[in-house]
């Protein structure tokens, strides 16, 4: 915490400790530098058009520091070409976020990469969807635009373009490999294919309905996103959730973590040529989803977390079904971990493949699971726990080798730890209500919701409008920080190892593209 940051700060409604500071252009830049040198991390950047209110555009940065979250705000005169100093020299992951801010609001950072990130020619370059007065339902013909990838020159270097449609049941995105023979010299990602205008769409919804859209930002993190949204809304409306609802949210979030880790562990075995792993883990995942169906009433908990609590209570025999399922899962997962660990072929593919060193992970703002695989032990559930995690001691997992094997090991550890967390939640489940009433928020209040999802921290910044409307809502996926890591992790690896390395990160396209 630097002295210059402490002046002029006040609290911002959030489920975590959160401060707020307004800065000028120079200070915006200085604060970023100070946060970085104090070991803080960039959570997200977003822009707003407030010209209707006070004639200004704004950019916001949310940083995570040892003592909580700090939101920094910088206002710019609403002239024709508003600009602000880039923070990418301190936080490289900011580069793509700044490009996205320009595509949506027309506010430009002073960085020099002006290629569109979310805009692929689907709307005119002088149209900025998040500006006030832009009608979100306007449609434009697609005018495809060139996108110059960085060229690698040299004897025998050639390019392999992959995507956006990939050869599997996965999301779309484009990868441009520059290779010599089988070896990857460079990878450049181009994302944004799934941009659906979610931030604009939020502005057409009421506060009480926004959680449904939040759950569909990235379907594999539905609980985390809908919880982050509700946490932000509950913070700005000063709502307290019933104890039971908070525990059920925790249970749902851990089930989501377990389901995704099971899916990934199976897919990683499969990508290493061990189909038996996929069969076993996909069986375990299906068993868990069926338990969800029986106890929560749905396989995937898209609409479970709702403002003020949760949408439905557990079935009567749920605690017993949960405990039986956890016991069976634990035995199976421990057994399969033993099988993976002792399988020479699998270990040969996992170890020393796709290495992301701790130093690189730190420089590139790695977050969440990927960071923990490279020796950076960040986990919001442990670092700044919110209820119910403030009542539970979650044991973190960190590996230092930074390879595929490390990210596999972190998944195994977290999966088993999640089972312990779930048991504790089930054992101490409170009775009573599952939902409180949430009033409409006062207009023009900004709040933050931050939840440690299975990939890493998921954030929702929510600003209220008049009579229950949403003025602005910015969701952020940890994949923004982690996609650039993949570009580094594949360097020097073989092209056929890319699917394995990619899967070991398993980043969200939809969450990044919004």
């Amino acid at each position, binding site marked *: 915490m630097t002295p210059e940051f402490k002046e002029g700060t006040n609290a911002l409604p959030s489920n975590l400790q959160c401060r707020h500071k307004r800065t000028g252009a120079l200070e915006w830049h200085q604060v970023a530098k100070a946060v970085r040198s104090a070991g803080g991390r960039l959570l997200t950047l977003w822009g707003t058009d407030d010209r209707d209110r006070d004639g200004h555009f704004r950019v916001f940065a949310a940083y995570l520091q040892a003592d909580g979250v700090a939101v920094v705000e910088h206002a710019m005169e609403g002239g024709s070409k508003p600009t602000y100093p880039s923070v990418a020299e301190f936080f490289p992951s900011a580069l793509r976020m700044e490009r996205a801010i320009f595509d949506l609001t027309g506010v430009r950072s002073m960085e020099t990469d002006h290629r569109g990130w979310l805009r692929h020619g689907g709307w005119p370059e002088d149209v900025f969807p998040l500006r006030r007065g832009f009608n*979100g339902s306007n*449609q*434009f013909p697609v005018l495809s635009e060139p996108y110059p990838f960085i060229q690698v020159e040299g004897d025998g270097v050639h390019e392999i373009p992959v995507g956006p*449609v990939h050869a599997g049941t996965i999301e*779309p995105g484009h990868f441009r490999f520059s290779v010599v023979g089988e070896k990857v010299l460079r990878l450049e990602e181009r994302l944004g294919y799934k*941009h659906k*205008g979610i931030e604009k769409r939020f502005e057409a919804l009421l506060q009480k309905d926004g959680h449904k859209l939040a759950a569909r930002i990235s379907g594999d993190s539905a609980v985390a996103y809908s919880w982050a949204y509700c946490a932000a809304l509950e913070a700005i409306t000063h709502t307290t959730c019933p104890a039971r609802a908070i525990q059920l949210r925790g249970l749902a979030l851990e089930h989501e973590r377990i389901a995704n880790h099971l*899916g990934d562990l199976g897919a990683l075995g499969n990508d290493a040529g061990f189909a038996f792993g996929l069969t076993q883990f996909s069986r375990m995942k*299906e068993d868990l989803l069926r338990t969800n169906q029986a106890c929560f009433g749905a396989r995937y908990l898209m609409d479970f977390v709702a403002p003020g609590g949760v949408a439905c209570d557990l079935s009567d025999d749920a605690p017993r079904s949960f405990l039986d399922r956890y016991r069976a899962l634990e035995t199976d997962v421990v057994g399969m971990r033993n099988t993976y660990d002792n399988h020479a072929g699998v270990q040969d593919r996992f170890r020393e493949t796709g290495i992301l060193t701790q130093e690189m992970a730190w420089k590139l703002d790695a977050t969440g699971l990927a960071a923990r695989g490279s020796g950076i032990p960040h986990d919001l559930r442990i670092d700044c726990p919110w209820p119910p995690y403030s009542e539970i001691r979650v044991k973190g997992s960190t590996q230092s080798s930074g390879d595929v094997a490390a990210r596999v090991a972190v998944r195994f550890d977290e999966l088993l730890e999640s089972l312990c967390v779930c048991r504790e939640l089930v054992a101490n489940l409170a009775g009573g209500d599952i939902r409180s009433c949430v009033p409409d928020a006062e207009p023009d209040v900004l709040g933050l919701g931050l939840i440690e999802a299975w990939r890493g921290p998921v954030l929702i910044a929510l600003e209220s409008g008049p009579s229950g409307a949403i003025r602005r809502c910015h969701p952020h996926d940890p994949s923004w920080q982690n996609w650039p890591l993949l570009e580094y992790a594949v360097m020097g690896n073989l092209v056929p190892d890319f699917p394995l390395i990619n899967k070991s990160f398993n980043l969200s396209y939809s969450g990044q593209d919004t």
Partner: protein
Amino acid sequence: MINTLSRMIRTGILTEEVPQVSKADVPTGEVQQAIRRILGRALCIRHVDAGSCNGCELEIQALNNPYYNIEGIGIKFVASPRHADLLLVTGPVSVNMEEALKRTFDAVPDPKLVVAVGDCGACGGIFGKSYASRGAIADVIPVDHYVNGCPPTPAAIVQAILQTIQSTNV
């Protein structure tokens, strides 16, 4: 190796009967025969994500787990649209994926079938039509069949695939 083998034996065969397609239950063998009669070989599916939230993808992936074991009834996922008989498309169609979806559709040899998966694929869902979303898949390429749900269950997806094949058998 012993571990692996003993786990296989302990797990046993989990594959369930194919979910009900019409009024009468169709045993697995008959579905397989129907596919063979109509196509003369396995049904090849190419999945295209045209902008979904990734929820439908999770349930499509589940079709390959041992419970649904879709390959066991003669349906397989292929890597290229040129090898496909049927496109399984999730939506809504984002503006940035519109061209890619059209090109993938064009690359599938005739005769071809399209199944739109999920509420968003059917009508645009919560995303609707916007500057960045074209909404329903049918607004971009012709669709033969829909599966509703958010996300639809694997059983509902298998059912829709089988219904689509049967409806071509008139």
